């Protein structure tokens, strides 16, 4: 399987660590998982940890945007962290940095999310 995800919760924040490659083939896997998890009433915010993400194309952008819309509908915030240079560049092109909370690592992103979520 070229995409794996592990998740953890911190209060009302769902933290998902993604490993492998995020493209048109693998995006539905993570989409379905996140979509289902974020319907849980006690979860409001989402943090994606991309430290172990080795490749992403615009399918990943679409997937992230879809989850962002879902999170916003719950009045939550969405963060992202651990961006490799190529993925950072792609996200910058997409304009997603204007709406996502970005952290260097999980700890940094969580602290920013917690500040913004108040």
């Amino acid at each position, binding site marked *: 399987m070229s995409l794996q995800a592990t998740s953890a919760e911190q209060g009302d924040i769902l933290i998902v660590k993604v490993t492998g490659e995020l*493209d048109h*083939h693998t995006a539905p896997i993570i*989409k379905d998982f996140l979509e289902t998890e974020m319907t849980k009433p006690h979860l409001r915010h989402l943090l994606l940890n991309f430290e172990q993400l080795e*490749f992403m194309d615009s399918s990943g952008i679409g997937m992230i945007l879809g989850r962002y819309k879902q999170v916003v509908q719950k009045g939550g915030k969405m963060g992202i962290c651990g961006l490799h240079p190529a993925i950072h560049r*792609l996200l910058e*092109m*997409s304009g997603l940095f204007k709406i996502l909370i970005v952290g260097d690592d999980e700890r940094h992103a969580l602290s920013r999310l917690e500040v913004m979520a108040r």
Partner: protein
Amino acid sequence: MNQTTHNRMELSFLSLSSNEAFARISVAAFISRLNPTLDELTDIKTVISEAVTNSIIHGYDNREDGWIRIVTVIQDDLIEIEIADQGRGIDNLELARQPMYTSKPELERSGMGFTIMENFMDECHVTSVPGEGTTVLLKKRIEQTRAIFN
């Protein structure tokens, strides 16, 4: 030392989304002879992914029985990649190439495919005949200095 390099490969595969990774790896392996930087390699893998995904999602409407062909030519430090399908073609090319435009918003498409191809490559040419198929031609010159020592 002046070495003239000419090489060419042709690859055909079914329009299965699982072949997107295969296409990326295959083209990357073929051009590795030129000693591209990690950035250049990633750029090429990304544009391959975009073009092949377009053929699958749009050209073949996510059908898995279409053929996609990739031809890669190396001439010295220049890489030319052609990605062709025999799918439905593009009715309005100008509209399709508009940044953020997608004809399939329900599939969570970002509409960024062509923008990425244009940004990551030196040239991006698209020809299409509605009902017959689409061909994307991508060109990139990689830094000469490292290619010499091969």
